[in-house]
């Protein structure tokens, strides 16, 4: 890979025809880095892919969080970001008694949700779609949120490979929480091992092929 590492304050590129993207800043004629990471250039847009640090929430992200508290009109959900997420009662498609929110989700339950809005007051979550909602069974693992793109792969190629090989259902949250659900524990553990293999080798180029080989060795 020719993407190079950069540290804050370093000059990335000089020239008027480039645009500063995420994690960069234009000062005078040059584009300077504001974060530590790898430089990526797409259509003259320079951005930095962070390699470490905490999860930064973004609108549209699918996240897996834990119910931390219950309000009179919704649930407070810890999504591993600086701010907690809020899941409103209105998101539940059926009638819920306002005194009995616990019946839908209790404190400590895991939930798959989407960030649909972010404002000063906090992060609003939504579960109004297929595949979202409370998690009833399966296994939860946590990885470094910066490695999530590698686990998902190009257009979900990596996740679908693991799904095909293990027969498990896998949901990857952008915050680094992964939900694995399979018929047997052995299958779930195999999927977990595969994901750990990816996170340990996330800089290897042609990783999808490597993972295929890894699965063949396991059989």
């Amino acid at each position, binding site marked *: *890979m020719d993407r190079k*590492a950069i*540290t*804050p*304050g*370093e000059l990335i590129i000089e020239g008027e025809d480039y645009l500063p993207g995420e*994690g960069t*800043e234009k000062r005078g004629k040059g584009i*300077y880095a*504001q*974060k*530590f*990471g*790898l430089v990526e250039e797409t259509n003259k847009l320079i951005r930095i892919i*962070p*390699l*470490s*640090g*905490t999860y930064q929430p973004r609108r549209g992200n699918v996240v897996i969080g834990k119910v931390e508290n219950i309000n009179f009109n919704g649930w407070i959900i810890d999504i591993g970001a*600086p*701010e*907690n997420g809020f899941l409103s009662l209105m998101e539940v498609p059926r009638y819920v008694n306002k005194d009995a929110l616990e019946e839908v989700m209790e404190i400590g339950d895991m939930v798959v949700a989407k960030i649909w809005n972010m404002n000063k007051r906090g992060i609003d979550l939504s579960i109004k779609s297929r595949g979202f909602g409370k998690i009833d069974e399966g296994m939860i693992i946590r990885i470094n949120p*910066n490695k999530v793109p590698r686990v998902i792969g190009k257009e979900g190629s990596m996740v679908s490979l693991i799904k095909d090989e293990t027969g498990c259902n896998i949901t990857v949250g952008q915050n680094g929480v992964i939900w694995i659900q399979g018929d047997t524990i052995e299958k779930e553990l195999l999927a977990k091992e595969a994901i750990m293999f990816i996170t340990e080798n*996330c*800089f*290897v180029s042609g990783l999808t092929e490597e993972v295929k080989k890894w699965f063949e060795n396991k059989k």
Partner: protein
Amino acid sequence: MTTIKRPDGRKFDELRKIEAKVGIIPNADGSAMFSFGDTIAIAAVYGPKKMHPQHMQNPEKGTLRCTYNMLSFSVTERARPGQNRRSQEIGKVTEWALSPIVLIDKYPNNVVDVHINIIQANASTRCAGINAAAMALAHAGIPMKGMVSSVSIGKLDKQLVVDLCKKEEDWEEGEGATDIPITFTNEGEITHMQLDGKITQKQLKEAIELGRKACKEIYEIQKKALKDAVDEEK
């Protein structure tokens, strides 16, 4: 004027052996180690996370909080563990040295915690601490305008030297020792300077130039350490 010889035989503008490494504390969001010879500092960064207690939250911009701590086994005579007047002061000074480069205003109501621990001390501990903290902040993915590098400039009698060690700090011949820790950004601007002792205006200017040169060297080492961490994973 008699010529002064440094106790460890270094040249006047020579730094001690520097080692730097990032990602040494797996539980932290960002971490780094930095050492000047026998002085070793480790820094861990946690956050951005919600500021607690709530009354300390600042809705306008985030907060940077530094704690400096000298571990009890870091010096020859056992140091009493825990915070004391000196460590509180150095923590605050470190905060001021770092805050001009850390773009913390993007995280209102949040706090970034920087914990600096000195595991072995032989003078210039605050400089090693600041250097480690700057690397740890970058490693934690906190947006920054640049990096900072810190070095202590000393005056032994009338001779300016770079990077004091403990023996030189306790220099007693002639005018004695003056210790000037200075912190520079990678663009050569000063973010922190302290001075203990006496110095003339002219010599102070010389000391700053000497520090600027030394900090350039340190900056290159910091940059290399961060980049090596990426290559190691590759």
